[in-house]
């Protein structure tokens, strides 16, 4: 009997999800033993035409990472959706837009003009790339950019969500075990639409730092603060996002003295990440005086970035008005 087929693809992404998969180390050999790897551009040489030649549903498991930045990303997402039985939105970009989703605060014109007017750009004719260009030998084409970066499930139907920037390797290993067990009839896959490879509480619940339910008189920036290594960072005034962020990473950043920046996305049951985080921050502020509260909140120097750092494209807001206009 032929082995079930495995694919992994990157749309608008950084490649960190690929590295996280390679970082399951010896376990990659189990993936090799259990699956036939049929498409994985970082690692092997199958091309788009090879995927197009496959039967619908021929790929058993597709790990799809990266956001939908252009029409080629969407085309491949639709192609792989058609060819795959199980489509996983793998990593923060595919799930919720990630850092590249911050582009949704700007219009395309703004993004383009910034890139093509940097101090080192030599562009006297003010050239911008064009999607279709007539060369003497024939027309060559590059994809058209979307006005807004979209998440994978804004383009195709998604079976499972695996959050993280990137997903932690121990979580990937656990998901690999689960899928292999399910294929052998020894386990059941979770219901469609589930979040896999993550916890169902918050980063705070995994964080080794002590919480004393203290309140704060100011927000502080990490480069100016000598933090106590044992105590909760938020209670020391550092705007740590752990309280609204899904668990599953073992609280890696707070454990290393850095604030959680929210890469695992909204905690279980949280509809709007920003709203949850705002209410959590509000609850630690030690004041009843509106003027003083305003002053304390001024210490949060970049609210838009703080609350939407990873989740803008997948949030209720999705994008600024200028980006929505295109």
């Amino acid at each position: 009997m032929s082995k079930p087929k495995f694919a992994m693809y990157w749309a608008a992404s950084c490649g960190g999800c690929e590295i996280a998969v390679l970082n399951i180390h010896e376990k990659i050999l189990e993936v090799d033993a259990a699956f036939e790897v049929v498409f994985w551009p970082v690692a092997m040489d199958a091309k788009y035409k090879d995927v197009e030649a496959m039967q619908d549903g021929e790929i058993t498991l597709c790990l799809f990472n990266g956001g939908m930045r252009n029409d080629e990303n969407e085309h491949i997402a639709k192609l792989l959706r058609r060819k795959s039985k199980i489509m996983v939105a793998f990593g923060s970009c595919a799930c919720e837009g990630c850092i590249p989703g911050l582009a949704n605060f700007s219009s395309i014109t703004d993004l383009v003009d910034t890139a093509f007017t940097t101090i080192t750009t030599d562009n006297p004719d003010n050239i911008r790339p064009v999607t279709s260009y007539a060369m003497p030998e024939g027309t060559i084409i590059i994809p058209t950019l979307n006005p807004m970066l979209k998440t994978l499930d804004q383009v195709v139907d998604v079976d499972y969500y695996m959050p993280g920037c990137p997903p932690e390797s121990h979580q990937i290993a656990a998901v690999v075990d689960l899928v292999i067990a399910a294929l052998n009839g020894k386990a059941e896959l979770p219901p469609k639409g589930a979040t896999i490879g993550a916890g169902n509480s918050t980063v705070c619940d995994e964080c080794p730092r002590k919480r004393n339910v203290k309140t704060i008189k100011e927000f502080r920036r990490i480069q100016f603060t000598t933090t106590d290594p044992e105590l909760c960072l938020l209670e020391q005034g550092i705007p740590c996002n752990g309280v609204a962020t899904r668990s599953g990473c073992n609280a890696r950043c707070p454990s290393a003295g850095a604030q959680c920046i929210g890469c695992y996305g909204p905690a279980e049951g949280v509809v709007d990440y920003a709203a949850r985080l705002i209410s959590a921050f509000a609850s630690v502020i030690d004041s009843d005086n509106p003027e003083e509260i305003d002053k304390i909140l001024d210490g949060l120097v970049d609210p838009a970035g703080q609350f939407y750092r990873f989740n803008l494209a997948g949030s209720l807001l999705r994008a600024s008005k200028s980006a929505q206009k295109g």
Partner: protein
Amino acid sequence: MQRITIDPITRLEGHGKIEIFLNEEGNVANTYFQIPELRGFERFCVGRPVEEMPLLTNRICGVCPEAHHMAAAKAVDAVYHVEVPPTGKKLRELLYSAFYATDHTTHFYALGGPDFIMGPDAPVAERNILGVIHKVGLEIGGKVIQMRKYGHTVVEIIGGRKVHPCTSIPGGLTKGITEEQRIEIEKMGRWAIEFAQFSLKAFNDIVLSNKQYLDLIVGDIYTHHTYYMGLVDANNKVNFYDGKVRVVAPDGKEYVTYEPKDYAANIAEHVEPWTYLKFPYLKNVGWKGFVDGPDSGVYMATPLSRLNASDGMATPLAQAEYEKFYATLGGKPVHQRLAIHWARLIELLYAAERWVELATDPEITSPNYRAIPTATPTEGVGIVEAPRGTLTHHYWTDDRGMVRKVNLIVGTTNNHAAICMSLKKAAQGLIKKGVTVTEGTLNMIEMAFRAYDPCFSCATHSLPGQMKMIVNFRDVDGNVVSTIKRD
């Protein structure tokens, strides 16, 4: 005109497409290498607190986030005019050395190496890391896995995470290391030196001892005569984390050495309308198109460039390999692009030796790993050598340290023009009238870019679109006969 498209190009980081046009005789008329994607970091980092730049710019590239983390860290130090204490610098360089050893291992065994270990025209299903492990056996495959594991363990101990480290802040790091961690890091580093030596021997046995491969390396189709760039220390030895940028001319003589803050006086970026990626060149030589030679500002920034641009390696075992490299290939500089693979393994050995040097430095466990900034933030440049080339981050902030402007020239982008030239030359050398073009032929064209280990995730950080456009109509000789502009 007949057209051959390779899409997507594979075993690299990120996206790219190659279009090859054949004339009526079946020879290559032209080759275009296009980058289909961009993300917009230079715009959306504006307005963010500058201390987040080492975290945000990580996400330009998950393959070399350590490089962006370090270039960003050095840029934010410069923005705050803060001097990182020696322990802080050494911890960052230690993390960076372990990362380098890991990254070069990934390229040799998973990305570039399969072409040699399995053969350029081996079946697609085997010409990859899993094929390599099946061929060389689990014992050696296990070493490769172990090397990657050790490297990422060090990145995690110092950087807090395996991918996208989080500990560098303006003035240093959020944490130091304990003596127990130091002992573990040293032990892994000593193993890494042996692994690097093993890899150099494997390269010697598999590639250099195979006449067909050696001919391919020293032959003409993968050769260009360009300028070479690399970061050097005070003794003009290769350094990955710190120093000045040195450029040598095609004849190997020093052309310029500049401080990171002076990069914009030395580098400019040419624009072409048919790709989403700019083409950096040496500003004071000038852009002359996709051509070789001392009059063309095209340069290369790769492991081979760093060896060509330096006077040697700062560690003894790597220095011996450096000398052997130039003795075997006929002296400096070496222009053959496939020799980048060999240069990469010499750097792997240097990275492992440096890893042990730093892990045994008496200051490395000192608690004095950060300084609190006191000056008003303004503007700063940070440069490191990414595995794929010199990486420049430049930030401007307001007096609260909020980002106002960003300029990034990333590792792979440096090589964009050189890669285009290499692909065209390889295509012209391999596809000829009467020759049947096989999958293996096309893979040998891809080998021309693979030597550079390009990372188009890095390169596509900015985000041009199709808003304003210029269309040139050209005659058969490529002369522009009319131009349409849409503003």
